[in-house]
């Protein structure tokens, strides 16, 4: 009886110490779930989900405050990936957050730009280059197409344009639409 109590007691102390050590030694900074959700989100930083950026939205999903269907740029594929990660049922995009659109980039009509820097301040990824009273321009490769620079412009010189397809960016479409070269007699 005494031996059993003692041995269990010793074991509980040993395991307790082990767990305590592991908790300190292998402590994970930040929430790994938020990182995983953030990795799926498209990083457009557009705020259509109702949060000020992709990471705040990821944090909200992780804490259960937001649903997984609030990200229009992520589209259906994004929702499916989130559902897969979190083990939830996929659902259609919430129309309150917007519609899935073709990916666009901002373009400044440069002669009309007055150099007010408002769009520079609005850009979440610093993709607009310029200075006060100097012409501004969009660094196309860095633009996420978030739309946030369009509204602040006082002279309406920013428009969203579709990304032009070139022979380098073109990829074969899914077979239903493809022209099939083969099948000769």
């Amino acid at each position: 009886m005494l031996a059993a109590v003692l041995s269990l007691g010793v074991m509980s102390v040993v395991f307790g110490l082990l767990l305590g050590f592991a908790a300190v030694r292998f402590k994970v900074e930040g929430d790994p779930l938020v990182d995983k959700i953030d990795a799926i989100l498209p990083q457009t930083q557009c705020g259509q989900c109702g949060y000020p950026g992709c990471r705040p939205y990821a944090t909200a999903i992780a804490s259960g405050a937001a649903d997984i269907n609030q990200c229009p740029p992520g589209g259906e594929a994004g929702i499916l990936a989130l559902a897969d990660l979190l083990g939830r049922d996929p659902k259609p995009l919430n129309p309150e957050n917007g519609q899935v659109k073709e990916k666009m980039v901002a373009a400044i009509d440069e002669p009309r730009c007055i150099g007010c820097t408002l769009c520079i301040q609005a850009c979440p990824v610093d993709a607009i280059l310029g200075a006060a009273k100097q012409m501004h321009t969009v660094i196309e490769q860095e633009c996420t197409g978030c739309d946030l620079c369009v509204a602040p412009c006082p002279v309406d010189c920013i428009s969203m344009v579709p990304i032009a397809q070139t022979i380098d960016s073109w990829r074969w479409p899914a077979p239903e639409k493809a022209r099939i070269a083969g099948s000769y007699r």
Partner: protein
Amino acid sequence: MSANLYHDGVDILHGQRRLWSFHGGIHPPQHKHESTNLPVIRAKLPERLILPLHQHIGEPAEPIVQVGDKVLKGQMIGRAQEFLSAPVHASTSGTVVDIGDYAVPHPSGLNATCIVIEPDGEDRGLEHPRVGDYLQLAPSALRNLIRDAGIVGLGGAGFPSYIKLNPGKLDGIDTLILNGIECEPYITCDDMLMREYPREIIAGLRVMQHALQARVCVIAIEDNKPEAFRALHDAALHEAGIDVILCPTVYPQGGEKQLIRVITGKEVPANGLAIHIGIVCHNVATALAVHRAVQDGQPLVSRYVTVTGGGVSQPRNLDVAFGTPVRDLIIQCGGDPAAVKRLVMGGPMMGYALHSDAVPVIKTTNCIIAATEADIVPPRPVMPCIRCGACADACPVMLLPQQLYWYAHTNDLDKVQEYNLFDCIECGCCSYVCPSNIPLVQYYRYAKGAIWIKEREHEQADIARQRHEFRLDRLAREKAEREARRRLKKASLAKNQDNTPHTEEAVDND
């Protein structure tokens, strides 16, 4: 074997090196004899040559001429700026009349930047310095010369050749294989080239051998080209260290990895290159281009192109200056462009349909098939996969095409990569044998593209995340700095206040 292969009463196949075989493969109808009856002639120069700046794998060349410039044949008009790129040369003398977007041979049917030259009809060439003895040149100087001549793989892929002539850290290559297989139906341009220029091809092979310091050279030819084999065999008779080998015809033996397997029995590792196992493969036409660049200082400005199919009355091979529109070739071979139902560039297995007959011949154009109604099999209905496994039997890479199809059509891009999608060479054997008429290769092409797009989106998202986080950090830092400045100012003002109490008003105004 046909009687042609007996030479002076001796079986020249006797003592040929041992050959291996690869898995699968198919035997589609050849359709090669149609275009080998007529001799090769030079194609007429068109009214306008359209020279795309992107005729190869890699980055497009940068134009170095302006509209209105007079150019000579062989003059460089587009310079290669990147490592993986190739220059473009004027294919005749004339005037640059435009630099702009024109339809180019590409499955997308999109336009790309081209330099348009109006020939002056004189076909005057630029005087190029000749290399006396290439053996005196260091292999690197030889490679630069080949790069500046704009030479790319002429078998169809168009990979810049000078890169494939660099043995890298290896001190020499074991086997240099010259690919004269030409396994795809209809195409005969390499066949005609081998019949006509066997000595020059072997001279080019020697140059390549010098650049690579290769130990052995092998020229591989399929047994449906006995004339070409005889020509090269005779030319190589007194050459040491060159094996001319006849291989039994099977598609896709001309694929680099398949040919290496057949010749050496070695397998190129997945995601690896042939050079990693000490083997380099070049096309016979590339060898001829190398010879001309080194011997005569001639850059690559023309090539042999097979023009065939029911849409032309005289199917044949033409020596075509790059930039010549396909339409001109069809007319020259007795075809009516209006009657052509479908135009294919390349062979029926790996080629693609052209959207217009105004597109020019480029460095990778080996064949034009002008198909009429009678040539085209009406599309057969696609039926469900019955898991018969015929595609797996035919696959030369030993993949599981039915599994790849299954995951590609359900868009399961992770799974399709697990089944080694990127080892697929898109030869089309699986689609050819499929009893359900499923366009399998189209699914793999689509899946490869979808994966590429997904990866690029991921990269861009990572950059956007970094930039966004950097911006948040910067804003926070600026705010903290402002805060600190204000505190400092407040503190100094408070100090002043203590010293001189009667400046109270000024503080309030601040």
